[in-house]
């Protein structure tokens, strides 16, 4: 995979999966693409179809209704695909942890490779997270 990963690291295409978040991380992710932070200078681009994606940005606790669709999205993505959990929700459930509508086992739905905690994480933190991913891919 090393050869492939190094090619991948040159230009990561991300697809954004919002699995019942509060919308805030999603807005901050979009913020990364606009002039102030401009992630496109690192070759990172937001794409509209999961078939084109190298990285899935997942935000939110995954609720029971959306879980089968998230699983489907992961299955549809071309492998290898890396999943980045943005925000506290994918890592710890945030304040929605006891909800009756939350999936019991998140790992059964989608395996997450990298967590960026924060409610919401600052764009700088997200950039650092992505940089760490690039570092791993380049190694």
């Amino acid at each position, binding site marked *: 995979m090393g050869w492939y990963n190094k090619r991948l690291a040159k230009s990561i295409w991300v697809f954004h999966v919002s699995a019942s978040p509060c919308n805030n991380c999603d807005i901050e992710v979009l913020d990364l693409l606009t002039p102030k932070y401009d992630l496109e200078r690192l070759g990172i681009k937001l794409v509209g179809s999961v078939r084109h994606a190298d990285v899935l940005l997942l935000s939110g606790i995954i609720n029971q*209704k959306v*879980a089968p669709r998230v699983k489907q999205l992961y299955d549809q993505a071309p492998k290898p695909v890396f999943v980045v959990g943005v925000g506290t929700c994918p890592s710890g459930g945030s304040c929605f942890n006891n909800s009756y509508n939350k999936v019991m086992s998140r790992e059964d739905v989608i395996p997450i490779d990298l967590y960026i905690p924060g409610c919401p994480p600052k764009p700088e933190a997200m950039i650092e997270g992505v940089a760490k991913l690039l570092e791993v891919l380049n190694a």
Partner: protein
Amino acid sequence: MPDVKSFIDKMGDRITNTVEKPLRLYFEVPAEHVKEVTGYLFNELGCRLSTATATEVYRGIEVLYHFSDDNSGQYYCPRIVMTDKENPTMPSITPIVQGAEWIEREMNEFWGVTFTDHPKPERLLSKDHPENLDKPLRFRRLS
């Protein structure tokens, strides 16, 4: 100032248990008069339906509509109490106020309140839900 007094006089004995607070008016309406009272509020007084709240109280299931008079900030809140906790039923006001469609569907889903004559009696939030959410907001009292 909104003319709350004349509204109470006009409704007469159709409304009971009136609670008056500054710019807020809560009152109880029997289920058979609810269409008449909400029709008067919406069509004659020109109020806007903000939303409706269902609650489980000791007497039964309670549905509280919130009508807002936007010119004065006055709220009229007709309260309907259904004593049958197993199958609470009341007439739908969606034929009068189109904006009540979604909230009545939501109350049906979460509280099990049946609205007769509702034009679209479907689930709102848990359609195709893998688990059958059964009135998740009712109290689960241990007997």
